[in-house]
């Protein structure tokens, strides 16, 4: 266990060096124009357009329980991570290196070339936490994770009285009993 080697990417968030296993990181990107998301939870700091796709930007500092980083800006570096089809960009201060490093016995960190302890970040946990935070903003117990209806022209609308999402034309008027 102690001799476990990990392929990691080493980066800095809020001035602190962290490492993440490479398997989670699809690519390192430069942020385009960052759109702020009002009413979003603190870890969800914006969104940008990557090759025609909307990609949310996360502040890993907040989501791993550390200090929040600065607001993301165009030109900042970010790690593109993906979990079960959910893609997000983790904003980082800078990327140090990609290396194969030894894991500490407790599995929570790796040792860099000079023997310093670099804490490991689990991007999948960060993503899950972000989704949970986002769901918590609803405050109506609708914790169901599911893809939005994507049929053209049948975008779900929310009933103002109940908050329930129903596609137009299917207003659930069937009452049993």
């Amino acid at each position: 266990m102690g001799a476990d080697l990990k392929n990691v990417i080493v980066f800095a968030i809020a001035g602190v060096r962290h490492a993440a296993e490479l398997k989670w990181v699809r690519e390192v990107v430069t942020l385009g124009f960052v759109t702020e998301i009002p009413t979003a939870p603190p870890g969800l700091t914006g969104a940008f357009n990557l090759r025609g796709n909307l990609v949310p930007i996360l502040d890993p500092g907040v989501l791993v329980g550390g200090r929040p980083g600065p607001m993301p800006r165009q030109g900042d570096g970010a790690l593109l991570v993906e979990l079960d089809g959910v893609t997000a960009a983790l904003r980082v201060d800078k990327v140090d290196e990609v290396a194969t490093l030894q894991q500490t016995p407790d599995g929570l960190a790796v040792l860099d070339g000079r023997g310093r302890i670099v804490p490991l970040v689990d991007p999948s946990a960060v993503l899950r936490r972000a989704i949970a935070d986002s769901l918590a903003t609803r405050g109506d117990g609708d914790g169901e994770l599911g893809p939005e209806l994507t049929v053209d022209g049948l975008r779900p609308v929310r009933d103002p009285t109940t908050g329930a999402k129903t596609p137009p034309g299917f207003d659930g008027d069937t009452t049993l009993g």
Partner: protein
Amino acid sequence: MASGDRDLLVDFDAEELALLRQLFRDEAHDALEQVTTRAQGVTIGEAVAEAVHEMMRVTHTLKGSAGTVGLNDVVDLAHKLEGALAAIRSGQRPWTAAFAEAVVEIADGIRTHVDAFGDPPRAAGLAARVHELLAPWSESRRTVGTMTPPHGTARPELLSRPRRRPPTEPAADVDRDDRDEPASASRSIMLPGSLPASLAADLTSDGVVSDDVDGSASTSLPAMDSSTGYDARTLLRVEPERINELMSAAGELLFDRNRIERRVQLLRTLTRDLGRARQTLRDDTAGVRGASTEALRAAVESRLRAVESQIAALTTQLAQTTAALLDETEAMRRNLGELQSGLTRVRMQTARALFAQLARALRAAARTAGAKVELRTRGEDTEFDKAVAERVTDPLIQILRNAVVHGIEPPAERVLRGKAATGTIRVHARQEGNLVVIEVADDGRGVDVKKLRERFVESGRWSRARAELASDDDVLHALFDPGVSSRDEADELSGRGIGLDVVRETVARLGGEVRMTSTPGRGTTFTLRVPVSTAVSQAMLFKVHGQVYALPNTQVVDTAFVDAGVETWPPGPGGAPVVRLEHLLAVPSIPLPDPPPARRPAVVVQYADQRLVCTVDKLVGPREIVVKQLGPLLAPLPLFAGATISGSGKVQLILDPAALVRAAYPDRPLASPTAAEAAPEALAGRALVVDDSRAIREALTSMLAREGWIVDVAEDGARALALAEQLPYDLIVTDLEMPRMGGFDLIDRLRAEPRTRATPVVIVSSRVTPETRRRAKELTVQGLIAKPLTRRKLLEVLYPETGKRDKG
């Protein structure tokens, strides 16, 4: 045909008849396929007797179903084919290779005829042709004896109850009552054939690109100018098969709905029964309290036990009904999904029409420029959303014009360079995952990156250092920046205002990208990658706190300038509440200038009859936007319904009007639920319909449901038996010849069970013989109906002594 339809409208409404015929068509195809396979099977050595028996069976079934849906020509043809087969079976005629061939031809002929039922003259012609084919094999005799007459003249036979009134008398009532139905059964789909002739002509010449993909532009281009050409974009062209798919999905939904409605009715009955059981229980409980003697107590106890077992039975039924309801809901969900994806497919079009438009535009451009160019296309069958196709057309035309003006050299120069005098532009479409990739490649002079670099420096656009540091790719893609043209003169063809920057912007709005590669002297290739499908909608855009937001135009009823400080707009009673959008968005408001402006711009949102006036920092205006889904991270945020990407590549959030209104009217009480409609109490009971023909099952279900029956269906005896073991039926209507377990076997088994010994059974069969009658009588069958089935026949059997059949 028309009068036949009118008669049938007594039995079914127009919608139902169309759907039943659709079902029948599928069944007929299957049946005729079986006939063909069997006939060919005999040719390769299968047993004649067995094959003939099977062919007769399916032909017979076909005949019965055809009569029920009113296709009498098919009844005739099937009847004759059956007769010809019977002659073989009875040994009057030997099976020959010629007969086998004739059977295959006849089956094909009937199939074509069935397909043509929407076109009576054609269908009649086809039927005549099949009659000719049948003639040599038909005998003018009825010796076979097993066939019922082909038309619906056979009266139903009541076996266990007397028929009280002459069958002809009440017919007028039935007819009059049902004449309220629309008389026309046909619902037309608008197809090119029904367009005005001029329009249809335009469509043909416009929308079709020659199949000769490598043909030169001069031969393969439609002979029509883009200026006079009919704009194919305003009409959605849909292949008939897709409409058929949708029809069939919609039909399934109709049946699903009927079934679910019947289950709900049943649930209501069960609720009522439960209520009665409870009442009994309550009465008896009171009885126990007052019971003085032991004997009385025992009596009450036994009644309580009876109630208990009654409740147990109801609970079981409730559980079964709920389970069935769940199944049916699931089926409906599936069918809805099919309908939705079918509709999405309807919106899809192939690249063919796009290519035709490009060809026309290229021809016009080449003529104006005096260039000789030919267009070669590939991937005509690539499909993409109509909205996407519309939006990439202009950028592609722009690229083509650029190629003609800037790319393709004059013929003399081309010959000098060792190229063919005529330039070639290749347009190639293909699908890659969710993207459509369109490549436009010319074999012209290409872009000289070195020269371009110098020009950027000369024009002051780039510094020398930047030009030196930039990669060739960077330089090439700088052509997409606003205000850059690779030629100095702004010419008419490539357009003054619209250049590559607009191409990139348009493609970016779609959520796609455009790339460019070029080899000097060899040509330039543009590659567009756009999503296959996209949702485009109209939106109102405005700025709040420096960011642009959008609201769907359908919910923006107005824009206004609102006086500072007012709480409703228009001021006074009846005005809608004014909300500062930055408050709803919880973003810091931009400090207002001093003195504050007297009025602020606002959008008036209306959702679910509630209005809201949202003040904003600045109105941007109405735009067409491509709606993007937010994804699992952002979708839970209540204020946003989606996002869009601006022409400059910025993400813009689409606000959810419902959420805004909800935020503005937080204390709005819930809408009172609509009172459940009164339950129809008149129930005839629960019936089970057993038939291997789907068309017959649905027809019977429809007829019985109109009389208030709750109907379950089974496709053969075995399934019916399983159902009858679970649920008590008040009526079983069964076919005789079915796979797995036939009708008589089923009735045998039902009669052997105490629970179903007395259940009324009605036989609906296309084969009514003395033997059938004898067995039916033995098995105490209530009635025997010869196919083709009509509502009148069914009612005469079901309600022989009442006036029930007069009911509408």
